């Protein structure tokens, strides 16, 4: 906490929380802009719909990590706050995983009834 206040102003010892250095803030912002450009550019590369979405989401995850770690100070915080965020993501992933598997299985019944999975159908 206050031990990190290396970049603080003249009365650095007065701060009881970490003050983020300026170059980190601007560096993160620049990286975010670059990644945004990258993710827009990535749609013109054809990797198949599965890999395209994985690529897009990977870039999004990197951006989110940058925002969470530096803009949201998780890098300097007590680790528990980061655990909380991680738990939230894990539980969303859990929910997604189960339900995607299940809907994929039963969509044959409630869907068009042709027995063809939508992912396979979309494939070339």
């Amino acid at each position, binding site marked *: *906490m*206050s031990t990190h206040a290396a970049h603080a*102003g003249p*009365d650095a010892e*007065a*701060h*009881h*929380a970490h*003050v*983020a250095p300026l170059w980190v*803030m601007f560096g*993160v*912002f620049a990286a*975010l*802009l670059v990644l*945004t450009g990258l*993710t*827009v550019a990535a*749609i*013109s590369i*054809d990797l*198949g*719909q599965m890999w*395209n*979405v994985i690529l*897009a*989401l990977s870039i*999004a995850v990197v*951006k*989110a990590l940058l*925002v*969470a770690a*530096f*803009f*949201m*100070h998780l890098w300097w*915080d*007590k680790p528990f*706050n980061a655990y*909380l*965020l991680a738990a*939230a993501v894990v*539980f*969303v992933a859990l*929910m*997604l995983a189960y*339900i*995607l598997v299940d*809907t*994929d299985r039963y*969509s044959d019944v409630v*869907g*068009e*009834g042709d027995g063809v*999975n*939508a*992912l396979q*159908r*979309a494939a*070339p």
Partner: protein
Amino acid sequence: MSDHEPPAPQDAPETPDPHAQGGGGSAHGHDHEHHGPDHLAHHFDSLEQQTEANKLGMWACLVTEVLMFGGLFLAYAVYRANHFPVFEYCHWFLDTKLGAINTVVLLASSLTMALGVRAAQLGQQKLLLVMLIATFMGGVGFMGIKSVEYSSKFSHELWWGQGNLYYPVAKKNAYYDKTVNENLGPDQPRQAWTEADRTYRIYELENYYFNYKKGVDWFTPHYIPPEYRVDPKDYAYHGGPADPPPAPAVSVTAPSASARAAADPQDDAQHAAPQPVVGLAGMTSSDIGSPAYGPSGVSTALGDVAIEGLEPDHGHRTHYTWDTLPEAERERVHIFFQIYYAMTGLHGIHVVVGMGLIGWLIFRAAAGAFGPTNFDAVEIVGLYWHLVDLIWIFLFPLLYLIH
């Protein structure tokens, strides 16, 4: 301080003794009139503890936000995974340029918010104020662009709910019966959709949006420019009768015309032109169901209306049009828009709430309320604002960059 004295009989929630404990005690309350015990709630021992608790509480709230949006991401993922053609088809209707600009706007406002927190921590009152105002303006910009986007969708009848062009026709008519037709006089024509009306409008939209995505225009205008209108002849080519049917007495009017007129009253030039929709009213859904219309599975261009976007070599492996979309998926196209509006709408509500909070911070900051020992409010609102940004970071590729 008062460890060994009997506590003073006062009702004020702040007692001086908490500062005897914890490293934060020496950090404040000496020379700044706004700092010191005022900021310390009575049930905390030190400012450090209070800040940690506030941040922890906020993170717990952010967890709930993540899970709440998680539900919408779940709905998105389920429909995308099981009905990908719908998503592939619909991504044409979202404006990547505006989405990207909005991403940058939101990222920039996140930066200013982070700088604002930094300014508050360092006691730079003016910089804090400037940064908060900049962040607020970022929110204004985001919502402004969002409203441009929404209103162009609305004007193209890509509403949420029953107003969506792709809503199943029978349900759509039931909705119009309830909302429009029951208020009409006995001699006024009923408004109702036929499959033919709708298909025609869909072709027009496809014609326009597919070209738009190719970079024809920078922003989606609220009307479809004349060069993208589908001529009834072309429509007829597409499987209807060889000659367009003569315009019948208007017994059925597609609501599209009035809806467009209402959405864009100043655009007289567009609406002065005769509405081709009228001429199509004689078509029946059985025409649409004829083999020439049917979901052939072959990517057919829209007759002699040249739409470059539909050619298979433009970089997209598969490309669905209304014609090639599997029959069962056509009924689900509207669900993409429902999910789109649910996700961006809930996100937009969060942006507005965040702007309200930042507005409150601006007033407090203008009064000099924040400083090195009292920046929790700025930091917590900042966390919220960053989370809103973080969610948009995922919404953008998922909605606007479907490949």
